[in-house]
């Protein structure tokens, strides 16, 4: 449904998006990650026909943004970064405007507006000027105008940025609810959000694509994926570090800072080793007093940093 081919954008000598290609199919929720200035918003602006690519193109629902921008725009619902809205308008008048531009009129227009208003819970502020609304409501008005025409493709640039935890939850629930039958591309700086709502994650850094996979794959890139963190009473386990290192399934042991009287370690497994079982048995056999044992899932922040800084240092 979305096919991005060698998409490139230059601002003067500066390359903001550098030869990015990927495709997104119906039903996918794609999380777009990357450090500040990576080129996420620029990519979205090209995808939605706002900016013309320097090279390459994007095909959305069979239409090329370069040659048929209007057809592309008709198929896309877009929430720009920061959800810009006309401050003098009310949510109702703004939604009417967008609905009319998108070809709705009369009762069908009003019906459709009622539906999205109910979906994003805007009833209480419909007649209030947008500039007087809270950030959460503004964002919801932005979302409402994006989903008004029930588009096949939704592009959301940081839809939960600056929202409180409840609002974030609501927006994510809404995205999940709409996901089947659509293509949704959203950018975010919240890595957990990708796991919660996305079926796929793409990371770009300095305009280049440097990761493309499922959120689980993303997590498993972590050094800490399946590592075991362990805390024992020091008096019962004087030479714990050396002892643990001798274990067959342990690749390396890292000593962690810990509270008085306890020792903490991070154990990294060898390939395919069932580390936690071995460690558990070992601790039991040695008679160490166990305070804490935990299988790490992998740290998203670490992966993110590794991937994006790795990409940066190869420049």
């Amino acid at each position, binding site marked *: 449904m979305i096919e991005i081919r060698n998409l490139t954008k230059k*601002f003067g000598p500066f390359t903001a998006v550098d030869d990015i290609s990927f495709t997104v199919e119906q039903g996918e929720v794609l999380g777009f990650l990357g450090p500040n200035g990576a080129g996420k918003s620029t990519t979205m*602006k090209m995808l*939605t*026909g*706002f*900016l013309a690519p320097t090279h390459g193109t994007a095909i959305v629902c069979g239409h090329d943004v370069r040659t048929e921008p*209007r*057809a592309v*725009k*008709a198929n*896309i619902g*877009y929430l*720009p*970064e*920061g959800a*810009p*809205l*006309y*401050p*003098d*308008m009310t949510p109702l*008048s703004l939604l009417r*405007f*967008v609905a*009319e*531009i*998108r070809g709705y009129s009369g009762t069908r227009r009003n019906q459709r507006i009622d539906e999205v208003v109910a979906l994003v819970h805007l009833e209480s502020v419909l007649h209030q*000027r947008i500039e007087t609304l809270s950030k959460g409501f503004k964002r919801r008005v932005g979302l409402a*105008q994006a989903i008004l025409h029930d588009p096949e493709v939704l592009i959301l640039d940081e839809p939960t940025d600056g929202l409180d935890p409840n609002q974030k939850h609501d927006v994510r629930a809404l995205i999940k609810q709409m996901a089947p039958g659509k293509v949704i591309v959203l950018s975010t700086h919240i890595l957990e959000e990708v796991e919660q709502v996305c079926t796929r994650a793409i990371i770009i850094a300095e305009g280049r694509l440097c990761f493309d996979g499922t959120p689980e794959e993303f997590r498993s890139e972590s050094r800490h994926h399946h590592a075991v963190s362990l805390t024992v009473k020091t008096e019962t386990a004087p030479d714990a570090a050396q002892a643990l290192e001798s274990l067959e399934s342990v690749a390396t042991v890292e000593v962690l800072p810990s509270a008085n009287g306890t020792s903490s370690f991070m154990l990294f497994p060898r390939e395919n080793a069932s580390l936690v079982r071995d460690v558990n048995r070992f601790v039991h056999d040695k008679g160490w007093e166990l305070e804490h044992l935990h299988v790490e899932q992998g740290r998203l922040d670490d992966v993110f940093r590794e991937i994006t800084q790795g990409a940066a240092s190869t420049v």
Partner: protein
Amino acid sequence: MKQTWIVFKRELGGYFATPVAYVFLVVYLILSGVFTWYIGGFYERDQADLQTFFLYHPWLYLALIPALSMRMWAEERRSGTIELLLTLPIEMAHAVVGKFLAAWCFVGVALALTTTEWLTVNYLGEPDNGIIVAGYVGSMLMAGGFLAIGSCISALTKNQVIAFVITVVACLGFILSGFPAVLDMFQWAPEFLIEATRSFSFLTHFAAITRGVIDARDLVFFTSLIVFFLYINAVFVDLKKAD
């Protein structure tokens, strides 16, 4: 066409959504009254016409039109709503023309409110209403020219104050290019250049219309000027929208 109409409606509604519109209308009416009845010396002239009323329109517009046009694109770019507008399924021309027509229509509303002065002269005497109608047509055309220039300049900056100042200067240029004093400065230039300068003067064309003759040349001048600047306007928006 339909898209232009929808943009037009939103824009025109936008003018009346803020107090700015009412301030503009009141200032416009007061100033045009002051110019006509006092500075223009309506009573001393002892003539039932609106010559003095129209005489000052270029100057009235010089101050007021840039105030109206400065926000047309500058504000759209500053607040980022341009991204909202231009990712809706419309062509650039719809947005540019819709915005322009809304501003023009707003000036039309202001101008329509001055019909009280028209009624007054009809009450006081027997003016040539044909000339007055021509005056209104000329005034609208001139306002359209100023607005097209202002809209175009507004697309170049995110700062409304800068847009205002540059528009005033540009409009002043178009007014003054017909002044003998200005033309004298060009005496060294070849004749065709002087003629060209004169032919770009709003004053020359406006004065011709207010004499009561709506000449095709003056009509063509203003309409082609409007079309030209709106075209440049679209090009500027396209160039500057990303910044």
